[in-house]
């Protein structure tokens, strides 16, 4: 069973997206920040606030970045993230939908 499936199988799913991101550690993602900066990198770790650590970063959108040529790893505060672009084939949409329903039910109770 995938890590995500295991985590979600336990009833404590108050942190749906935290578990979801933990299952994506090691994958390449593109983080778009609220200041329009887009950073591509490998997801190293995530925490409950959805702060993100990326390794081996590179900037994707040429017009919208400061010069970060020497920066290899970075820590991104969760609150400044606008989007995270994910590899579609790494995401189990059925599992996510089921987990979202469970989370919604638990949230109500």
């Amino acid at each position, binding site marked *: 069973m995938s890590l995500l499936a295991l985590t979600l199988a336990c009833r404590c799913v108050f942190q749906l997206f935290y578990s979801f991101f933990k299952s994506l550690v090691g994958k390449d993602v593109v983080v778009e920040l609220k200041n329009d900066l887009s950073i591509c990198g490998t997801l190293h770790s995530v925490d409950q606030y959805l702060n993100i650590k990326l390794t081996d970063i590179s900037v994707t959108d040429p017009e919208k970045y400061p010069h970060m040529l020497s920066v290899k790893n970075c820590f991104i505060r969760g609150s400044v993230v*606008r989007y995270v*672009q994910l590899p579609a084939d790494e*995401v189990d949409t059925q599992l996510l*939908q089921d987990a*979202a329903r469970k989370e919604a039910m638990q*949230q109500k109770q």
Partner: protein
Amino acid sequence: VTGDRKTRICEVSLPQNSSLCRFGDVEDGKVWKGGEWYCLSSRSGLPGWHFIPLQQPTTNTVEEPLDLIRLSLDERIYVKMRNDRELRGRLHAYDQHLNMILGDVEETVTTVEIDEETYEELYKSTKRNIPMLFVRGDGVVLVAPPLRVG
């Protein structure tokens, strides 16, 4: 509201014979989603009932605004965001903060350019497609079914 989300009367088939029996409003107020039925009624008390447990119980009542979003899971939705952005995609997950995972997303960014001389407002929109996207909830302003065009 699509067919499988409407309230249904629980049906449990008796193991001894092939007839179906219907419950009215189940005491616990739960209605189970299609395919498998799990009927728990403290009023039945009859021996020999087969209960087929469902993996995920859902309540069919829409009580709070977040329930409306739950109805849109696996459907296409329209999301209005801050900074004149709009998203159209398939909703795969959400939480109480309105963090969301959308698939097959089209993002539209609208900008207004004002002509210096004529003070005309020129609306420009830029679109891009993203196969799978996590959206942080603090940027979300509105969630709705997709707007019908034409």
